[in-house]
């Protein structure tokens, strides 16, 4: 997969590549968007794909976004993250009215296509027999990923109310600030490690969590999403300068990232 970044007249798209790092970058339109992608040092040294995904598409006053964290212990977690990330970006782009039931149904419906693709990703032949057997067992259990996705429609002077819609499963971080006050506590109880999406069964550990609220005109807000590879960010509430976020991504204190990291921040 190649990195896809484009920006024209307040249209902007970024889709991470799982094969390379993307240093912290900024796009400034009606949204201020910061995004980055990094692989675990282990993966980088071995030349392997990262298992996270981040995608964002801004079109004027609307923004669609997806962050995925492939489950390393499932079969080819990078596949689930990439498949679901791209599929959700497409779904967000063509869906206008959402319901929790319709979203849960969609997450179930896409398992057929995902399983069909995964079937072709067979374990390599040259690995030890025990590893091959374990990989074959894992393939039968499917590929899994955690995810957060959503869409923002900004309010304007003419349209005084906008809205934000989000859905998620897993323990990736979803942090939300309203007028500089963090209101993330609302989500904490639902960010659960044992919840995810599987190519085999769809939602795992329960139905997707869905949040929707209106956005008021003139009220500054900040939404920050990242995977657990960037958990050093957890105690930090203030807006960090770019270079400090990049330091967390470079992770010199641990000789590089210990896990893959995807980062997305939106301010409006």
């Amino acid at each position, binding site marked *: 997969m190649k990195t896809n970044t484009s920006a024209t007249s307040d249209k902007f798209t970024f889709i991470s590549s799982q094969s390379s790092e993307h240093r912290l970058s900024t796009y400034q339109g009606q949204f201020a968007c910061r995004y980055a992608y990094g692989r675990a040092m282990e993966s980088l040294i071995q030349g392997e794909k990262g298992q996270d995904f981040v995608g964002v598409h801004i079109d004027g006053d609307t923004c669609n976004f997806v962050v995925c964290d492939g489950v390393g212990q499932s079969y*080819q977690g990078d596949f689930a993250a990439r498949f679901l990330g791209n599929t959700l970006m497409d779904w967000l782009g063509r869906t206008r009215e959402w319901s929790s039931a319709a979203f849960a149904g969609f997450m179930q419906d896409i398992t057929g296509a995902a399983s069909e693709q995964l079937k072709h990703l067979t374990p390599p032949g040259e690995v030890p027999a025990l590893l091959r057997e374990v990989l074959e067992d894992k393939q039968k259990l499917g590929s899994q990923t955690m995810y957060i996705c959503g869409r923002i429609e900004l309010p304007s002077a003419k349209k005084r109310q906008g809205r934000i819609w989000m859905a998620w499963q897993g323990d990736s971080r979803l942090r939300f600030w309203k007028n500089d006050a963090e209101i993330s506590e609302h989500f904490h109880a639902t960010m659960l490690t044992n919840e995810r999406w599987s190519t085999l069964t769809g939602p795992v550990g329960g139905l997707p969590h869905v949040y929707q609220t209106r956005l008021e005109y003139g009220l500054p807000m900040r939404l920050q999403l990242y995977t657990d590879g960037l958990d050093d960010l957890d105690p930090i509430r203030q807006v960090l300068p770019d270079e400090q976020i990049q330091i967390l991504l470079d992770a010199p204190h641990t000789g590089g990232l210990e896990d893959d990291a995807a980062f997305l921040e939106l301010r409006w």
Partner: protein
Amino acid sequence: MNYTIQASQRTPALIIYLIDISASMNMLMDDKRRIDVVYEALALAIRQMVFRSTKGNRLTPRYRIAILAYSDDVYDLLNGIKGIDEVAAVGSLPDLTPKRFSDSAKAFLQAERILQSELPHMQDCPAPLVCHMTDGVATGDDPEPIAKRIMSMSVPDGNVLVENIFISDHMLDQPILQPRRWKGIHPETELQDEHAAKLRNMSSPLPESYREMLAEADYLLAPGALMMLPGSCAELVSIGFQMSAATPVRA
């Protein structure tokens, strides 16, 4: 000190198995020799470690293991500590052939020496674990003081853990009919066997992180349970070996 450091390539878990290969291990359990039940359970635990150590198609050495079989002497079956990737590359475990006596003190002493040499290099790693499997009374010196010394060794993640799997039909006053619903052995559990009581003294409390990992595999041990399993059937022996590999790892 809360057993939460995750096993990774940079911070691998160390597990030392002490396997009793005395003559009584030829006796039958579930129509198999006890030694064969143990062999299969150990092989399953290693498979579980491989399962937890794969990322993509690659096996990352998140676990390091040593296997010491003992009778009247100690036999280092892997010739030192080996990474799980090296064990998987070999493919099969060395044979476990029952011999005569059961000198567990010698095995614990060798485990202690391994830990003394390894701990200085494991300060960022999960607390090591010693998993002892036996089916009878030790015939040599008392192993308890050595096990206690081992349990007092520590890294920042916690004290070294000692687990005991005791193959016996007479340890509890009632059989365990549903191993997956069993709550475990607790400090106040009544034990019918003096040797079992000794082994309980040599067993660490089950860390919460291990308990949660076992719960994910549908084994519902209660808070406060000890790392001690009565190996009265093959499934309980298997739970014991799975417990040894329940070090937290990144999902």
